[in-house]
């Protein structure tokens, strides 16, 4: 276990200053970065959750300029990744790209052609770096202020100091964005931490869907992904965020996501976690206005060597708010899937309703799972319930499918797919198809 505080030293302060200068950021952003850095250095490592002792925070190049420290030979790619690319039919050139050789993708964001359409509606959709310069006042109002301040926890502070890339998505009053806004992010340098920072603002009555992630594994050698996502849902607005995470199995994925939901607003989180060595992911919804609602749908697949620790943090801070959580996790090999949730109903939040349902499926002898929910109910006029189950694939289901001609392997894959269906059905089709294929590959053991 790492020591409590880190003495990283002046080197980081210089790196932050250089980064800010190179990006041409306004002074307030530099100040914010420096403040975040000091918070990061003063906060201890978390004493709970998965083992983070393999994470060495001293050895990361936080900012890499485009031509320094490029990724190595394709031959250095781990065997399992090569197999995955084969199985997914990814051509040679793209493999180089996914292995981190693509120069254009240096901590940056790839846009879809929809950018023009969005512009017409008055929607602002650009990389966070660009937004800081183009809309400084707007960004300053929202960037690490009320939603995820640098003091939220150590890795939020780390992000605040070294963030680069991420999306700024602003939807004006009443605007409904029809097509989901999609973003890919990739990481280049093997020893680089990915600290993207995304802010989504939906003004009153607006509606938008945002998808991030990629089913093909994204590789970082000894990496850390400490991303932050801050979401503001206006009155009667609706935001859905879908994330498909498949970091290569050496990455520590410590993400912070939080949404503040106003009166009659609605927040939907859809999280599919497949990769990383360790994931700590607890999307939070703060229901701060009357009638606000949140929906958290999670599916995670923990294979050998993985610990996926996810959960929902929901705060009912106003009357008549409601939220529900569905979490489906699968553990294979010695993978461990954990649900760690927190529901809090503040005094005065009368008529709040909350329900959490988490189910775990264990596939192998060494698989394990755990659920650690906490419900703090400080308002008698509320209804809070939680249900969980854990077990293996039912023999009678297997038998039934096999009697219809499926091999045992196929039957298991089918059952696993069905188990995840309540969540995967909310993922847009092209992503879902890719995701399911990947699960099939995992089930077959083709990717060890």
């Amino acid at each position, binding site marked *: 276990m790492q020591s409590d505080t880190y003495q990283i030293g002046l080197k980081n302060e210089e790196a932050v200053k250089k980064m800010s200068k190179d990006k041409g950021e306004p002074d307030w952003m530099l100040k914010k970065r420096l403040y975040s850095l000091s918070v990061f250095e003063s906060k201890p490592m978390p004493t709970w959750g998965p083992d983070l002792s393999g994470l060495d925070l001293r050895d990361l190049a936080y900012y890499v300029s485009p031509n320094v420290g490029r990724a190595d030979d394709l031959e250095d790619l781990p065997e399992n990744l090569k197999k995955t690319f084969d199985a997914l039919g990814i051509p040679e050139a793209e493999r180089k790209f996914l292995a981190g050789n693509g120069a254009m993708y240096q901590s940056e964001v790839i846009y879809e052609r929809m950018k023009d359409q969005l512009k017409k509606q008055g929607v602002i959709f650009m990389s966070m770096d660009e937004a800081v310069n183009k809309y400084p006042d707007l960004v300053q109002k929202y960037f690490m202020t009320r939603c995820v301040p640098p003091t939220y926890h150590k890795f939020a502070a780390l992000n605040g100091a070294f963030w680069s890339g991420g999306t700024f998505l602003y939807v004006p009053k009443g605007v409904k964005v029809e097509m989901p806004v999609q973003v890919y992010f990739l990481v280049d340098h093997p020893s680089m931490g990915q600290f993207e920072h995304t802010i989504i603002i939906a003004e009153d009555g607006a509606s938008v869907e945002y998808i991030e992630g990629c089913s093909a594994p994204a590789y970082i050698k000894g990496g850390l992904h400490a991303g932050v996502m801050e979401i503001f849902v206006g009155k009667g607005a609706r935001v859905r965020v879908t994330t498909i995470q498949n970091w290569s199995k050496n990455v520590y994925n410590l993400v912070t996501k939080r949404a503040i939901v106003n009166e009659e607003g609605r927040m939907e989180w859809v999280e599919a976690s497949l990769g990383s060595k360790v994931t700590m992911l607890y999307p939070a919804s703060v229901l701060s206005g009357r009638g606000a609602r949140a929906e958290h749908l999670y599916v995670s697949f923990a294979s050998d060597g993985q610990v996926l620790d996810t959960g929902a943090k929901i705060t009912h801070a106003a009357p008549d708010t409601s939220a529900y959580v569905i979490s489906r996790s699968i553990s294979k090999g010695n993978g461990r899937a954990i649900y*760690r949730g927190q529901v809090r109903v503040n005094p005065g939040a009368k008529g709040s309703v909350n329900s959490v349902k988490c189910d775990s499926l264990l596939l192998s002898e*060494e698989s394990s799972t755990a659920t650690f929910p906490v419900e*703090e109910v400080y308002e008698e006029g*509320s209804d809070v319930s939680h249900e969980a189950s*854990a077990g293996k694939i039912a023999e009678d289901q297997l038998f039934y499918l096999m009697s219809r001609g499926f091999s045992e392997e196929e039957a298991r894959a089918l059952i696993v797919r069905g188990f995840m269906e309540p969540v995967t059905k909310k993922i847009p089709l092209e992503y879902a198809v890719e995701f399911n294929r990947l699960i099939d590959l995992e089930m077959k053991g083709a990717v060890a």
Partner: protein
Amino acid sequence: MEEFKEFRDRAQLTYANALPLKWKQESGGHLVYREELRYSDYPMALPQGFEEPDTGGFHFNGSGDYVLKPLLECARDLWVSQELYRTSEDKLKLLALAGWKHGYYVNVPQGSKAELRVEADDCSNRLIVRAQEASELDLSVNFSSKSACNRFNASSMQVYAERGSKVTLNYATSSSGSNFLDFEGHVDSGSGMSLSALQVSGEYSRHFGSVDLEEGSSVRLLIGDFVPKRAFGDSMFVVKHGANSTSDVQMRAAVFGKGVIRGITGVKTGAKGSKANLQERVLMVGEEAKAITSPSLDIYEKDVEARHGSWSGRIGSKELFYLQSRGLTEEQAIALLIRGMFAPFFVVPMFSDVLGGIINA
């Protein structure tokens, strides 16, 4: 006796340095920290001496075949001594294990049947119970029949149900001050344990229990907590499973003050065929009611069937309307509901005495 005095002297040092167990339920970066009893409320030290042999503290009546002796009289017994000289790092548990005032050992010989009713006359009691192979024991203990316990009471009970035995337990604890009760159940192969435990909370009440299930054993737990206004009640039970073991745990609470209800199910690797069910139900009454529930599952074996559920809230508006349409006031409706919630307890006379008065209040 001498040995025990030495043991207690050594324990004094541990006690002085021990910290109260702080519950840190860690989730999503938010430390939920609960420590309601101030350090200064704990007794300064473990009690100093006692009469030899200690024969006060309880009164009993029983039937069947059993042996009942003060703990110190059996301190030479190998089995008893192993249990007697245990310590803990948790300040409260240590207080209960090493700082008891009256201690008794109950032994039901192999193949025998026994029935025993115990009433505590004083505070800080320890009961070590051994139901030997193929025996049957029906034991009921009232830890709080005397109101002398209202300052500080730390009692404990360790029950061993050995191979093929059947143990039925009922116990009640209540206090208006600080009250701590620690229960340990060890259920050996092929044995069954059924426990109904009721806590009526006072200023600070902590009821902790753990049950270890060996292969092929089963346990049924019914844990009730009644938390009046301005009271604090903390109930936590941990069940650890062995292969082919079964547990059914019902935790119920009527909370007018502040209640914490935690049920934990653990299944270790190799505990194949385990079946576990944990249900927590908390009825909150009144503006000041606060409840924290945390049902947890920690599973390392795929060949299991484990589930749990919890619910907290107030009486539903439809149910309330139905009862009101029969002429009942809201208070009467809630009292009915609470009576229904604790209904399984009323079967045992000891509980209905304790509960009956409270509910009507």
